[in-house]
């Protein structure tokens, strides 16, 4: 059956900003879908608010709308584009919810848009717990008895308590229609139940939670299932969770394929999975089904199904080589699985089997209607960010808390686990074999019984302390097979430690079980370099195997490799020069999809310019680890050891032009010098130049030489040092360790005691790792620039003005491009400063600089000679592919070359004043609703120099107000255009807050405030109602406290700025309670004056109505026409002259 010809245009909905539970796996799936649908000749219309995605690059769709994924905006897109069909199963829960909303509002019917992939009914059946339960209970699967956990659907707290009476404790709470398990959890008693169910009810868009019997400690599995319209069904992958039931699968260590099922049990699960996808009615596409198995008797419980592509599908795709999203898109437009070639085996020139003459016609490909079989083991480990939220409780529950993941492939479990753990780049995650275990076994067992981010390390410690597998099973319920594997690692480590000599056999044994050079070095009290040297001298090196979907049954043509300490390598020789691109590893706060974006661009462009691109990365969610993205893919940890081995293999395969380290963020950057020292050619900015920019003294000299100002600072190697510096430059000061990304460990401190506290708490201060103490520029405007430098010429990609003042981490701050308040003269100063710094540092490629403008002084805050988080945003806002340009500069192109071939603008740069250009606003998205403290309270939502956001959105329009409003809608949902605002601001902000609050009052907002703020507002003729502080309690006259008012729904917008200094009492606590209530009730909460001013502009724009949507391609066409017009009018005009005349 061929593809459908009755539809010609398809609307694809993305998943919006990266949040916990919904990360760049949906960029991977959406990008695949867009590619496939365009290849098939459909007109693709895309809506996604996330500018950091590859899918929103204009070449991936015919019309790309970077607009909020909200029904109102989607309806506008549908009205403008009139697509025939809507594909919502590749954009996560966000897209699915949007499709449901559009369907319920009648929009799809009104415009005649067909839902493809999964119908409205199928979505309902899969997502609605009661309906799903009925489906599972009605299944008739011979030889299997699938059940669902006993449960009750509840719509109120009364229902919830009644359910608890029936089922008994502990109980699981699962809200309907939320992703990543928001609002779900385990309740061991009534108090916990009330708290969790309360959150769950409000998190659920339909105010519905499921209260369910506990199956804590059971074995947990997932199946990835795919179905076509001819009802052919295949299981793409089985996944087994190392962490038993009770930990969200996104937070679990997971393993593919399933390890501890016999064929009978696996086939029973497979039968049930197939029966479910049929019964739910996912006609064309993939779904993910989760199972729990009682380890004592095999009782099977179906936990849930997602009628869409999921995070696990991305993992399964990377784990098997079967591209689920791509195939899902193809079956959605009518192909059957047997009509779709398996890419991995399809590129051959001869049939895999030689039949005798006349026996059959030759075949050149194998079809996608098969089930991948693995001859390796895949392990995925979650990446947590608890260090960003020190007060957050790190117990793992059904509510996902990890911010990213790393995957590794090995020829056995121990090898894959070791690689996955070191891929996390979290020193606490890898097994620490050094020294004796001092903790008593009992303590270790007790601690390991609580699922949390450090559990695996405790299990290892317990084994090393003499614990038995039985004891560990009792404590953790981790399957005995996995426990034995961990014990095996402990035993191997012990053999390494006690071996008389580091022989080839000892090393091979260690490597076979995933023990890194660094771990061996610690075990043997050697340096890692020495271990590597010995290993190489003894010829103990990994081979590279291939992910081929078929366990070597057929020849694979797709060079998707992983390392293993085995016998035979499969890397093919090549003649074209290779460029290795080092990716950015697991997503984490401060380093996410934005860096993957740049790496992908480098791969795409360098392939076109004669290089064989070789991607090295370990993040299964990304586009970069799609085997389609680069010419060769190595799914490997980004550690020195692993990267050197990839380089070694590729250098043996053919010429290597160089290794790119500046696009993947801090992960590859910190390897740069060591790689170079090991003889690896680094292209682009040299490791010495990178060091120069990071090293304060040397960088300060560059600034001095060029007459540039920096905030006064000092470098402290002790607490006493730090105090001395602080006294010299004056409080407030910004303190941080050197070498940071995402503001790790960065704080603004206002007094001596806080400074000493910080040093004790947050740093390992030594003469080698000093702490930086900077003067903090209160009230400055912060400016971010991304620029390209080729050694002679600078191309200023874009200048962004932060909405929040300096002090808020640039990753958390909203910003506008072009800058809204900076004049041309300032831009010129910024360009000149950027040029001097780029030249002084020795940049070849990208540089990102943060400036602060205070009064008339331009300060240089920091320079990063690498791709920044804002590269995709700037690229989209200015219609210029900066990452592609950077990659080419690194390989020798000049800016003049790039201007000549149209990659960069001619005559002007990214700061050109263009009538036709949009105003773009970037807004950060915060994960606060994910984290609670041990006593159940929310962690605080305040912004500061430590980055906390997980993702970003972009709003585009002609004016700032509208663009800002769009960015707020995209990140937080609807912006209130009427109702009431609650205002409580720190003293220093009161003056600045008067104007925007007064404006809100003029717009008809009712204004509430705490007493102090109210007095100031009243004096300025604002009508204010006073609310009582939480510490004061409700008034005798019934006056509510702020929190009560928020909980009662009286407040539609909160404006609360933090108090800089804690002066007696506990005023900080009030603010924190207010912000917590805001999270709980999902009320927008603005925490800076600048943010409020922007919000007011947005509200005004929204009230004027008539918001429009516009695709990037239209913006681009107009911008290009305007630029072409300028060229025609003036030949090659001098930008400065033109500015002067404008």
């Amino acid at each position, binding site marked *: 059956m061929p593809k459908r010809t009755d539809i010609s245009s398809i609307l694809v909905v993305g998943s919006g900003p990266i949040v916990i539970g919904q990360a760049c796996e949906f960029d991977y799936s959406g990008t695949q879908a867009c590619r496939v649908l365009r290849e098939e000749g459909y007109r693709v219309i895309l809506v996604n608010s996330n500018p950091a995605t590859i899918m929103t690059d204009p070449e991936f769709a015919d019309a790309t709308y970077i607009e909020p994924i909200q029904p109102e905006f989607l309806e506008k897109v549908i009205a403008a584009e009139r697509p025939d069909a809507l594909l919502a199963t590749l954009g996560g829960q966000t897209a699915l919810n949007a499709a449901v909303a559009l369907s319920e509002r009648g929009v799809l019917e009104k415009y005649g848009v067909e839902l493809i992939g999964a119908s409205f009914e199928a979505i309902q059946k899969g997502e609605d717990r009661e309906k799903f339960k009925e489906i599972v209970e009605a299944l008739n699967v*011979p030889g299997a008895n699938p059940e669902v956990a006993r449960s009750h659907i509840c719509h109120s707290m009364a229902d919830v308590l009644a359910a608890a009476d029936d089922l008994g404790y502990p109980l699981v709470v699962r809200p309907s229609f939320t992703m990543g398990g928001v609002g779900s959890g385990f309740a061991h008693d009534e108090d916990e139940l009330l708290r969790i169910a309360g959150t769950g009810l409000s998190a659920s868009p339909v105010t519905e939670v499921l209260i369910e019997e506990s199956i804590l400690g059971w074995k947990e599995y997932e199946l990835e299932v795919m179905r076509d319209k*001819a*009802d052919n069904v295949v299981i793409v992958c089985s996944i087994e969770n190392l962490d038993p039931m009770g930990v969200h699968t996104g937070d679990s260590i997971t393993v593919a*394929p399933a390890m*501890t*099922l*016999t*064929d009978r*049990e*696996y*086939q029973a699960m*497979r*039968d049930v999975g197939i029966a479910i996808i049929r019964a739910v009615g996912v006609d064309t596409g993939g779904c993910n089904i989760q199972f729990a198995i009682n*380890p*004592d*008797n095999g009782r099977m419980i179906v936990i849930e199904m997602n009628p869409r592509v999921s995070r696990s599908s991305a993992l399964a795709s990377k784990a098997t080589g079967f591209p689920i999203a791509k195939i899902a898109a193809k079956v959605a437009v009518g192909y059957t*699985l*047997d009509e779709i070639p398996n890419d991995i085996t399809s590129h051959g020139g001869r*049939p*895999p*089997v030689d*039949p005798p003459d006349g*026996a*059959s*016609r*030759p075949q050149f490909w*194998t*079809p996608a*209607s*098969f*089930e991948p*079989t*693995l*001859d390796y*083991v895949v392990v995925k480990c979650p990446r947590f960010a608890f260090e960003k939220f020190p007060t957050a409780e790190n117990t793992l529950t059904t509510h996902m808390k990890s911010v990213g993941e790393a995957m590794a492939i090995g*020829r*056995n*479990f121990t090898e894959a686990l070791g690689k996955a753990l070191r891929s996390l780049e979290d020193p606490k995650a890898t097994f620490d074999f050094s020294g004796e275990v001092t903790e008593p076994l009992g303590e270790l067992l007790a601690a390991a019984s609580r699922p949390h981010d450090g559990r695996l390390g405790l299990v290892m410690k317990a084994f090393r302390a003499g614990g038995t*597998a039985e004891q560990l099973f009792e404590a953790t319920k981790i*399957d005995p*097979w996995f426990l*034995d594997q961990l014990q*095996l690692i402990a035993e191997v480590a012990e*053999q390494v430690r006690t*071996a008389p000599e580091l022989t*080839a*056999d*000892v090393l*091979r*044994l260690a490597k076979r079980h995933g023990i890194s050079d660094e771990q061996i070095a610690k075990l043997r009290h050697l340096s890692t370099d020495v271990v590597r040297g010995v290993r190489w001298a003894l010829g103990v090196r990994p081979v590279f*195997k291939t992910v081929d979907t*078929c*366990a*070597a*049954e*057929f020849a694979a043509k797709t060079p998707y490799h992983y390392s293993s300490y*085995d*016998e*035979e390598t*499969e890397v093919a020789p090549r003649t074209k020069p290779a460029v290795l691109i080092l990716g950015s590893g697991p997503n984490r706060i401060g380093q996410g999809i934005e860096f993957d974006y740049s790496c992908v661009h480098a791969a795409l462009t360098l392939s076109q310019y004669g290089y064989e691109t070789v991607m090295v990365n370990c993040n299964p969610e990304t586009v970069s680890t799609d085997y389609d993205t680069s010419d060769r893919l190595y799914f490997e940890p980004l550690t020195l050891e692993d990267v050197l081995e990839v380089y070694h293999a590729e250098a043996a395969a053919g010429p290597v032009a160089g290794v790119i380290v500046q696009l993947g963020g801090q992960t590859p950057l910190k390897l740069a010098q060591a790689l170079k020292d090991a003889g690896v050619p680094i292209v682009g900015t040299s490791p010495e130049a990178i060091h120069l920019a990071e090293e304060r003294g040397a960088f300060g000299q560059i600034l001095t030489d060029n007459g540039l100002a920096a905030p006064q600072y000092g470098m402290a190697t002790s607490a006493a040092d730090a105090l001395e510096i602080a006294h010299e430059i004056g409080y407030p000061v910004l303190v941080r360790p050197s070498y940071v990304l995402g503001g790790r460990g960065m704080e603004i401190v206002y007094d001596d005691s806080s400074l000493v506290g910080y040093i004790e708490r947050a740093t390992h201060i030594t003469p080698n790792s000093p702490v930086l103490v900077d003067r903090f520029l209160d009230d400055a405007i912060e400016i971010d620039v991304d620029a390209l430098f080729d050694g002679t010429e600078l191309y200023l990609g874009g200048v962004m003005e932060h909405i929040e003042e300096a002090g808020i981490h640039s990753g958390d701050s909203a910003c506008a491009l072009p800058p809204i308040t900076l004049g041309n003269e300032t831009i010129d100063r910024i360009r000149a400063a950027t040029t001097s710094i780029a030249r002084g540092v020795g940049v070849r490629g990208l540089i990102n600089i943060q400036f602060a403008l205070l009064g008339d002084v331009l300060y240089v805050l920091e320079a990063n000679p690498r791709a920044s988080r804002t590269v995709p945003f700037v690229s989209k806002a200015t219609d210029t592919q900066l990452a592609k340009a950077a990659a080419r500069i690194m390989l020798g192109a000049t800016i003049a070359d790039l201007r000549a071939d149209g990659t960069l603008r001619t005559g002007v740069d990214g700061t050109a004043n263009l009538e036709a250009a949009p105003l773009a606003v970037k807004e950060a998205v915060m994960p606060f609703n994910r984290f609670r403290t041990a006593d159940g309270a929310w962690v605080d939502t305040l912004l500061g120099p430590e980055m906390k956001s997980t993702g970003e959105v972009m709003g585009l329009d002609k004016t700032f107000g509208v663009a800002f409003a769009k960015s707020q809608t995209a990140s937080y949902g609807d912006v209130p255009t009427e109702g009431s605002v609650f205002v409580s601001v720190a003293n220093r902000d009161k003056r600045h807050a008067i104007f925007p609050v007064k404006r809100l009052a003029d717009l008809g907002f009712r204004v509430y405030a705490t007493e102090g703020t109210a007095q100031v507002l009243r004096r300025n003729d604002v009508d204010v109602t006073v609310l009582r502080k939480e510490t004061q309690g409700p008034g005798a006259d019934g006056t509510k406290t702020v929190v009560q008012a928020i909980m009662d729904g009286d407040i539609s917008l909160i404006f609360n700025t933090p108090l800089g200094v804690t002066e007696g009492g506990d005023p900080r606590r009030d603010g924190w309670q207010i912000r917590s209530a805001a999270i709980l009730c999902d009320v927008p909460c603005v925490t800076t004056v600048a943010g409020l001013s922007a919000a007011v502009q947005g509200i005004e724009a929204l009230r004027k109505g008539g918001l429009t949507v516009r695709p990037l391609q239209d913006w681009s066409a107009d911008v290009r026409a305007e630029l072409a017009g300028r060229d025609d009018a003036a030949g090659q005009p001098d930008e400065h002259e033109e500015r002067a005349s404008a």
Partner: protein
Amino acid sequence: MPSGFFDHEQTPALLVLEDGRSFRGVSFGATGEAFGEAVFSTGMSGYQETLTDPSYHRQVVVATAPHIGNTGWNDEDDESSRIWVAGYVVRDLSRVRSNWRSNRSLDEELRNQGVVGIAEIDTRALTRHLRERGAMRVGISTVELDPAKLLDKVLQTPSMAGSDLVADVTLAEPEVVPAVGNKQLTVAAIDLGIKDMTPTRMAERGIEVHVLPASVSLDELRELAPDGVFFSNGPGDPATADAPMELLQGVLDQGIPYFGICFGNQIFGRALGFGTYKLKYGHRGINQPVKDLRTGKVEITAQNHGFAVDAPLDRAQLTPWGHARVSHVCLNDDVVEGLELTDDDGNLLAFSVQYHPEAAAGPHDSAYLFDRFVDVMQRRKRSTTDAQEN
């Protein structure tokens, strides 16, 4: 070099292929020597079923799944009375067993049954070698660790092509598997190396199954007055199976409905006048896509065959018993995976598949074929009853 070098419990072992390539590993299961045809199986689950499948008689099986033995060995999942593989090659043998149904470890079971295993082999390299060079003879040994000497022994063993192994695997005396519930039909199942799941699947459908030795005569068969005849899977070269082929032709002469699996498909092919040939390296796994040419539907099948039927995919052939055509085809390489015989009206008279609908190990997608067999038998029963009544 085996990585467990200084673990004193591990005994070194050697694997040598007939073309001289050798691999060193460590022993598990029984010690000693084993020879056979090296084949690889790509199933990720079901090693117990695989090892006890008589079709693997005289074969040394290479498991491509790296971890083997994780779920131990239980008393429920054997597909016959013993382990048939001549030897077993794995990468990582599990040290423990983890499953609620497990009774002992794989290692223990192999030792009990005297089956030689070798572990810590680069099974992917070995599999790629077999894929490129074809299935070939192999020896594994814990006593002869000199590759040249072991190779001499390998070269002295018989090759699979031309081997008649039916007599080795067929049962001695007939056995009856009673129908589950009311008996609806009687089937005579010729044991050419039958797996236990096959009569189980039939019995579940109300069939009383008489499992008969391969040496049974047509007359003995007719004495049972079966509603249908079934030929099982089994080892060896189908080109040597003349006696079973002649028996089947006699069955077709009688107009008795027929269903065959695997070896039973190849014999059916020969009975219908088609040839058979040896595949380069066979199909052995539980993920093979097969298209039912009748319905156009794809099923994921369990397969284990080194030989295949040589029949045209695009046309029917007239035989003395009706129209013969290919009914199923493997989508990976167009190998014939099923045959059918129909009358002039298109009614199904007899059929067979090259793969394993009994699926142990493997997916259950093809279980419908047992229903199809029941339908064919019921229809014939009705028509003969009608004929008698008329």
